[in-house]
């Protein structure tokens, strides 16, 4: 198929139209309007960097970036730890390993909004009554403080996504040649040595993939945030994505929300690119 063939362009037309009208044009359009006083329909004035200056002074926005960053760091570490652990567990020869895979993966199929509501019930009612029963005060009043709201979100997303990360690690674990492990066994390597020197280096690409996924997902979480804590108490568990939606559609500050969205894009893109670049380099070294 050549460029000048009409069929080449016919085959690409639907997706080019989709990508342009849904992502590329809105992205550029939004970028331009973030420098104005746009109200979603019209813009009458060019403001230059005024929105961006306001944004750097906005304590609520800064707090949401900081909260999101903390959340991303903790959940990336936890998710990879649990995901790899589950993968190592279910790749052992066990009668029920397929059943376990099915169960660990299940929360992924259900939307974050619904899962957030289920865990809201668990944190408030189940934790509450367990706390009363066992006399552990720390269990009561979950989601009503910033710290417990933070950990609530971490627990929810770890439970939801660990099965997905497990699947990624399983795919790479199963591609490790069996004779490599056998040879190491014959040479007298114990299971920890085998893991450290064979399994771990060979699943390094899986780490790149899952770190990319967990990082970009953690930065963009919205549904779980909305249904679990709704940003409360006092917006202290509000993540960036939620802050932007609220600024735009609750407070109706479209141009300002768009400038937040531009900064949000820059953060997500920088984090994703840096991470992939760094991990790729590390993979080659091994």
């Amino acid at each position, binding site marked *: 198929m050549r460029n000048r063939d009409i069929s080449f362009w016919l085959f690409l037309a*639907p997706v080019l139209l989709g990508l342009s009208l849904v992502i590329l044009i809105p992205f550029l359009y939004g970028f331009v309007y973030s420098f104005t006083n746009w109200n979603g329909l019209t813009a009458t004035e060019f403001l230059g960097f005024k929105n961006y200056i306001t944004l750097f002074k906005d304590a609520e926005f800064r707090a949401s970036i900081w909260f999101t960053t903390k959340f991303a760091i903790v959940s990336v570490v936890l998710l990879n730890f649990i995901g790899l652990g589950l993968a190592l567990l279910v790749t052992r020869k066990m009668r029920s390993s397929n059943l376990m895979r*099915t169960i660990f993966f299940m929360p992924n199929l259900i939307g974050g909004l619904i899962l957030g509501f289920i865990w809201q019930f668990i944190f408030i009612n189940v934790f509450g009554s367990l706390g009363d029963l066992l006399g552990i005060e720390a269990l009561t009043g979950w989601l009503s403080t910033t710290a417990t709201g933070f950990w609530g979100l971490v627990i929810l997303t770890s439970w939801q996504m660990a099965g997905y990360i497990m699947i990624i690690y399983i795919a790479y674990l199963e591609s490790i040649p069996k004779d490599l492990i056998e040879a190491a066994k014959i040479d007298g390597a114990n299971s920890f040595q085998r893991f450290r020197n064979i399994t771990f280096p060979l699943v390094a690409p899986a780490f790149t993939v899952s770190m990319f996924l967990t990082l970009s997902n953690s930065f963009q979480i919205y549904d779980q945030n909305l249904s679990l804590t709704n940003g409360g108490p006092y917006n202290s568990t509000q993540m960036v994505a939620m802050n932007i939606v609220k600024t735009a559609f609750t407070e109706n500050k479209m141009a300002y929300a768009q400038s937040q969205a531009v900064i949000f894009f820059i953060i997500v893109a920088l984090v994703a690119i840096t991470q992939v670049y760094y991990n790729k380099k590390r993979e080659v070294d091994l």
Partner: protein
Amino acid sequence: MKTRKRKHYLLEVFGLLLALLWLSPFYLMIVNAFKTKRDIFSDVLGLPSEFVTENFVKAYIDLDFTKSLFNSLFITVLSVGVIILFSSMAGYALARNKSKLSGALLLIFVAAMLIPFQSVMIPLVSLFGKADMLNKTGLIFMYLGFGCSLSIFLYHGAMTGISKSLDEAAIIDGANKLQVFWHVVFPLLKPISVTVGILNVIWIWNDYLLPSLILSDSSATIPLKMFLFFGQYTKQWHLALAGLTIAIIPVIVGYFFAQKQIIEGVSEGAVK
């Protein structure tokens, strides 16, 4: 040898306990959905003292479940169908055209994945609003735009395994490009189509924010209806939990029938 076996046995018990722990949120949701409001308050962990089925009837009606299920099915099936058809065509065209231009186009599609939804959300709603496209048709088109990047990437990768001589043979037999694609190439792409389909179904079925900005109440999908429903019953957990249970049933039924394909499809998508 004996200690080895016992170690495996212990590991299996540990795994099963962990699996039970994993399932416990669903257990808590279901048992409490059958309780009265008072029962939930007095004993949240145990089985209900009497099984209340009215919770489900009321939740079903308030969720307008038949209608929201239909809306969800309609939007998901059509969007995923459109994504599979158009992305496979694009993946085919880009893989068979070895020029700088097609390399650049593929790069643009992949790079677009870096743009978070919130970064285009406001202008998207504004532009589609001006075109009077804030409806189901507009939504399906948006899903094509958001879903095509990853799908094209997967199809493009899968095309490398399909020999060009098949195309040439069909052309000699008198087929045109569209016929070659539809009768020769597309059937060979079936495994990757399953993966693309599964990945997009999971995401579109569960999507909340985009439909909430686009759809009116009469065309609300399950997540959207669930959000509105939940707002009404924040203090009436017996009804709220019954609603959540109802909303999850279609997913669990689907998972039961296609678990092997789903897990394989996701793993295929993750390795690429």
